[in-house]
C-alpha cells in the first residue's frame, strides 16, 4: 500500500511537472517569452549637420533594438567599430546627387522575432556654391571690353526719317526754284 502511494505520488508529480520542463526547453528558439512580446522601442535617428553639399561628412546617431540598417540616396553611412548598447554612431558622406531634400531611412530588426521598426529623417543636399577646384570659373579672363558693334555707325531707324526730311527739303527748295524761274520768265 505504501509502495502504491509512493508510485502514485511520483506519477502525479511527473504529470504536473513534465509539461513545464518540456516548455522550458523549447522556449529560447521558438516562441517569445512573455517579456519580449512587447512592441520594440521606437527607433531614433539623428543626423548632424542636417544638410551639406556632396562630399560633406556627417554624423549619424542610431537608437535601435536589434540590427540597424541605414539607407539613403543622399548619404553613404558606415557604422563605427564599437557600438555601445542600442545606441550606435555612423559616419556618413553626402553623395554626389542633385540638391534637394532626401530621406535617410533607419530600419531596426529585433533578433527575437518581433516586427521591424522604421524611421525616416530628412536630409538636405545643398547646391554646390564653392568655386571650382581648378580656381577661377572663367579660366582665361579676356582683356578690355568686347567690340560687339559695327564700325560703320548705327544701323538703327534714324536714317529713314533723315532721308525723308532731306527729300522734303529738296522738293521744297526745288519748288521754290521753279517759282522763281517762272517769275523771272514772265518779266
Amino acid at each position: 500500500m505504501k509502495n502504491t502511494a509512493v508510485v502514485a505520488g511520483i506519477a502525479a508529480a511527473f504529470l504536473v511537472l513534465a509539461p513545464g520542463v518540456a516548455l522550458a526547453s523549447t522556449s529560447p528558439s521558438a516562441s517569445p517569452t512573455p517579456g519580449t512580446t512587447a512592441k520594440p522601442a521606437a527607433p531614433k535617428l539623428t543626423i548632424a549637420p542636417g544638410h551639406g553639399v556632396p562630399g560633406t561628412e556627417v554624423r549619424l546617431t542610431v537608437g535601435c533594438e536589434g540590427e540597424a540598417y541605414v539607407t539613403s540616396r543622399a548619404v553613404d553611412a558606415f557604422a563605427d567599430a564599437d557600438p555601445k548598447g542600442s545606441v550606435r554612431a555612423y559616419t556618413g558622406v553626402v553623395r554626389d546627387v542633385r540638391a534637394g531634400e532626401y530621406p535617410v531611412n533607419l530600419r531596426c530588426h529585433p533578433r527575437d522575432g518581433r516586427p521591424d521598426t522604421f524611421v525616416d529623417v530628412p536630409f538636405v543636399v545643398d547646391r554646390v556654391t564653392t568655386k571650382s577646384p581648378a580656381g577661377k570659373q572663367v579660366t582665361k579672363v579676356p582683356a578690355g571690353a568686347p567690340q560687339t558693334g559695327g564700325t560703320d555707325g548705327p544701323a538703327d531707324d534714324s536714317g529713314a526719317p533723315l532721308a525723308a526730311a532731306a527729300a522734303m527739303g529738296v522738293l521744297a527748295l526745288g519748288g521754290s526754284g521753279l517759282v522763281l524761274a517762272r517769275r523771272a520768265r514772265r518779266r
Partner: protein
Amino acid sequence: MTTKITSRRGYLIALVVALLAALVVLALTLGGEAEPPAAQPPPAQPVAVNPAGEQPADAVAALPKSDPVSIDIPKIGAHSSLVPLGVNADDTIQVPPVTTPLQAGWYTYAPTPGEVGPAVVLGHVDGNHQKGIFYRLKELAAGDRVSIARADGTTALFEVTKVHQVPKQEFEKEGVYDDTAGPELRLITCGGVFDRSAHNYVDNIVVYARLVRS
C-alpha cells in the same frame, strides 16, 4: 531778246537753288561726323534693373558641362545658333564676324550655360549696315527669360536678374567674368553712343541672368 535773257536767268536761279538743296542734303547726311548721334539713349550711369542682384533661394541645381548650340530670347525676337569664341592675339575676347551680325557666339573659356559660373554669350548690336542679333538686348529687364539649347539635348532656361550699361573703359571693373555661386549667364553687346571718330560704341550692354530650370 530780253525775254530770253530773263528766261535763262530764271533757269540759272533754279539750278543754283537745286545745287543749294543738294548741298543741304549732303550736309544733313554727313552732319554726324562732327557730332556723333546717339544710337541709343545713354544713361548717365550704369543702370541696375535689379540693384541687389541677389541669388534667389529657388535657384536650381547646376548642369554638367555641355556645349551650347543655340540661344532663344523670345521677348526681343533673338534666335541664333552659337559659334565658339576664344581670345584674339591681344587677349581681347573674340566676337562673331561683324559681316554676319545676326550670329551669336559663346566664350569657350567660361563655363558652359548651366554649369556653375558665368557662361558668356556675345552678339553684335549691328554690323554690315544692318541690325545685329542683340540689337534689342537693352530692352530686356529683370524676369525676362533666355533659353539655351545644349549639345546633350537639354535646354537651360535663364531668368534675367539685371541689365547694366557699362562704359567700355570701365568694363574690366564690372566683374562680368567673376566667379558666381550658381549657374549664371552673361549676354554682352555694344551700346550707348557711337563714336564716329573711333568707329565704335562707347558702352557695353551686359545682361545678367541665372539658371531657373533645366
